[in-house]
């Protein structure tokens, strides 16, 4: 029997000469969950865009049901039964769930939009595929996991036989991931086929039947999920052995940073977080756990001086930071690796050398009498590029031309080029490949061993569990639980607190907060 969907020696070169796909082979059998894994820049997204008609391949052939086919646009792909759920949803927040699902293919009653039929259709679909979601509320009010279901329903409503999910678990809490997997299994049980793009290998092994590994625009191979382990898969992806393990801190040092009863307000006056109290000691990493949007990011921004504190105290080595400017805080030894390197952490149009000195423009080494010391700036860049093994054409190259991992290394290099006292880290390895992740983790532990107190926030629980010495859980702007990290602590345990399903007694929490 011919495979359902086949890609044979697909090649795609973008204008500008970037070869994104070069001889990619992919064979999808009907009714399987097929994972496509690979590092960032391996060409997964480009392949999926070709399958969904957003990009067109310049070499090779696509076959659907054994017949050659080519999609000029997503419409044609949809008409051929292919649906795609992007990492960033394309939903209208103010529209209700059922309106979003049927948008563009509304059931009609004469010329009128038949709302009752639309609601009934969406109900039926969500029951059939075990994607429980109420059709009536506006999408904007739903949690991320439910919004994702709406996206999947959208594709199913258009009768997708093949569903492409682009990194679907990146935005979900562990429990939500479980629910997604239940839905995926229900889909497959009813004869649909799922292509699953992913980063996190344990999930890939759990959900998929077959796995295709891509590296540097090529397919490395396809394997049965039950024949491989996490390690062998990682080796295939990276092309060399890789160990994602870090050493925990030794003895922690004296108290470095203390936050007391901090309250943070949004620009519109609503409260984002309140009663935040925590302590970080020199030489330890405190993990901030929580589903995104529960106040962790805002806490880090407030400590960095990018957001005013509405109330409370932030102290570093006993000195109150609240009235100090960003620059003054930096001079006291605060460094920060922001959540979004492109929006906040870098000037992508400026050169590597300029980005690397941007936070030190009052340093006599680089600026004297208002004039730049270009030689020193260049030497600084060359040294840091070497030290942090950034792959770049040279210090004068614009940062925007680097890959995600190398951009993140520039941020890390700048923030850690001098030993900080307090290091604020948010999503250090988001969208970063395994090799760079390993390197960034090492850099963070090195800063910790050098005496930095580290506050780490991440959407990746395995990252938090791997790096943190203690963890605090945020839920709706409050700290609801605290743990001393140990091998017994699991992502599932944290997940119950992250979703507000569990509460910790005040005594245990106080003990772990010290």
């Amino acid at each position, binding site marked *: 029997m011919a495979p359902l969907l086949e890609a044979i020696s697909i090649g795609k*070169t973008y*204008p500008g*000469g*970037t*070869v*994104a796909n070069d001889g990619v082979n992919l064979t999808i059998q009907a009714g399987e969950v097929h994972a496509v894994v690979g590092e960032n*820049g391996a*060409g997964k997204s480009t392949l999926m865009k070709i399958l969904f008609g957003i990009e*067109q391949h*310049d070499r090779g052939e696509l076959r659907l049901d054994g017949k050659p086919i080519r999609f000029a646009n997503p419409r044609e792909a949809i008409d051929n039964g292919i649906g795609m759920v992007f990492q960033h949803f394309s939903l209208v927040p103010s529209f209700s769930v059922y309106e979003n699902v049927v948008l563009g293919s509304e059931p009609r009653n004469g010329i009128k939009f038949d709302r009752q039929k639309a609601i009934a259709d969406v109900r039926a679909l969500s029951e059939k595929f075990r994607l429980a979601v109420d059709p009536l509320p506006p999408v904007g009010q739903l949690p991320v996991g439910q919004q994702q279901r709406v996206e999947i329903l959208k594709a199913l409503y258009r009768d997708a036989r093949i569903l492409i999910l682009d990194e679907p678990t990146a935005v979900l809490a562990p429990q939500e991931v479980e629910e997604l997997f239940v839905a995926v299994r229900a889909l497959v049980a009813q004869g649909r086929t799922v292509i699953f793009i992913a980063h996190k290998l344990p999930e890939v092994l759990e959900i998929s039947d077959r796995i295709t590994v891509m590296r*540097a*625009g090529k397919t490395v191979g396809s394997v049965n999920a039950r024949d491989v382990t996490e390690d062998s898969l990682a080796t295939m992806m990276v092309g060399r052995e890789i160990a994602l393990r870090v050493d925990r801190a030794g003895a922690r040092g004296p108290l470095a940073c203390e936050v007391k009863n901090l309250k943070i307000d949004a620009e519109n006056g609503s409260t984002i977080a309140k009663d935040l109290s925590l302590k970080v000691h020199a030489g330890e990493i405190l993990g901030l756990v929580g589903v995104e949007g529960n106040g962790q990011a805002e806490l880090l921004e407030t400590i*960095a001086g*990018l957001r005013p504190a509405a109330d409370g105290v932030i102290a570093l080595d006993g000195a109150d930071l609240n009235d100090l*400017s*960003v*620059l*003054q*805080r*930096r001079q006291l030894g605060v460094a*920060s690796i*922001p959540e979004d390197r492109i*929006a*906040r*952490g*870098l*000037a*992508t*149009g*400026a050169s590597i050398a*300029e980005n690397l*000195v*941007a*936070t030190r*423009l009052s340093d006599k080494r680089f*600026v004297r009498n*208002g*004039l*730049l010391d*270009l030689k020193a700036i260049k030497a600084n860049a060359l040294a840091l590029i070497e030290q942090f093994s950034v*792959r*770049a*054409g*040279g210090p*004068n*190259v614009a940062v925007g*031309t*680097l*890959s995600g991992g190398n951009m993140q290394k520039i941020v890390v290099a700048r923030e850690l080029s001098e030993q900080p006292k307090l290091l604020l880290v948010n999503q250090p390895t988001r969208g970063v490949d395994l090799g760079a992740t390993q390197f960034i983790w090492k850099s963070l532990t090195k800063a910790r061993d050098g005496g930095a107190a580290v506050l780490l926030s991440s959407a990746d629980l395995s990252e938090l569990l791997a790096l943190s010495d203690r963890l605090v859980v945020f839920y709706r702007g409050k700290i609801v639980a605290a743990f001393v990290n140990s091998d017994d602590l699991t992502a599932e345990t944290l997940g119950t607190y992250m979703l507000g399903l569990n509460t910790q007694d005040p005594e245990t929490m106080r003990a772990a907060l010290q």
Partner: protein
Amino acid sequence: MSTSSPSRFALVGREVARAVIALAIALLVALVVILATSADPAKAFSTLLTAPLSSNRTIGLWVDDVAKLTLTGLAFSLVFQAKQFSMGVQGQVYMGGLFAALVAMSPIGATPFAIPVAMAAAMCAGAVYGFMPGYAKARFGASEIVSSLMLNYIAILVVNYIIRAHLAPAGSGQLVTAKFPETAILPAIIPGTRFDLGIVIALAATVVVWFLLYRTNWGLKLRLVGHNAKFAEYSGIRSSFIMVSAMTLAGSFGGLLGAVFVQGRAFGNLAQNFDGNMAFEGILIAIVARNKPLAVPVVALAYGYLRQGAQLMGIRTDVPTEMISVVQAIIILLVASSFTLPGKKFIGRLMGRSQTATTAPEAAK
């Protein structure tokens, strides 16, 4: 995926190729307009292309334009590099022109200090005028686009009024001041032409702006604010100070342009509406030069040549004057839009999908 790092030379080459292709398309369209409206299109077209070099006088006209276009281009480049869209150069030109004229007509005008003092006064006036929209933005969040445009009208009308009511010779009924003393007028480099000290001032200003942007702490901060204001804030750069100071400094160059206008050989007096809207053409120069100060005079040289050629074509041939404006507008449109069009993919699609076809519009962009 591989990231190639094109050398600086290749990068400059690509930019120049883009400009040249845009220019060629503009000339082609101009040719079509001329063919449609002129009885002797060959003569008209050759006038457009060669007239600026036909005599010392026309060379003077050209160089004078280049000086002015360079200065306005520099003023716009400075604010654009900080991602501030202040449109206030015209107002600064009028304020600068007024103060230069006041100095030139005062007793100082008859001394050897006339030129430097008038220029300093003009720069101060322009700086104040540039500071106002910047401060309004930093303090009250006022859009610099709106406030600077409104300040332009105020400046033009106030200066026009002062000329008519107070500075024009009494009873003459004229809308211009008396000629300044010779000591207050920029000396000609080629006697009898408009080829005067203005071009030297413009080139010196170019070097100053380049130095400020690329060799000083302030310039690096300014460029970082322009690249990403949120990043600047996170790095501890005071972006509102940078913003206001960039607009103030750009204002001083606008004011300087005002002095070059009124003290140049072209005028030597203060007239109503003296800038003929040339101040705004600096936007075009800045866009094509990608806000790079060293590229500004080069772009001004090429654009000023075409501009002068079109004007001389209007004077010397039968191409109707309306069409001259049309040709000028087309040149501006093509040159400017080819540098900013977001739809290069769309153009690429129009030109066909093959690899070879997409490289041509790519280069044109």
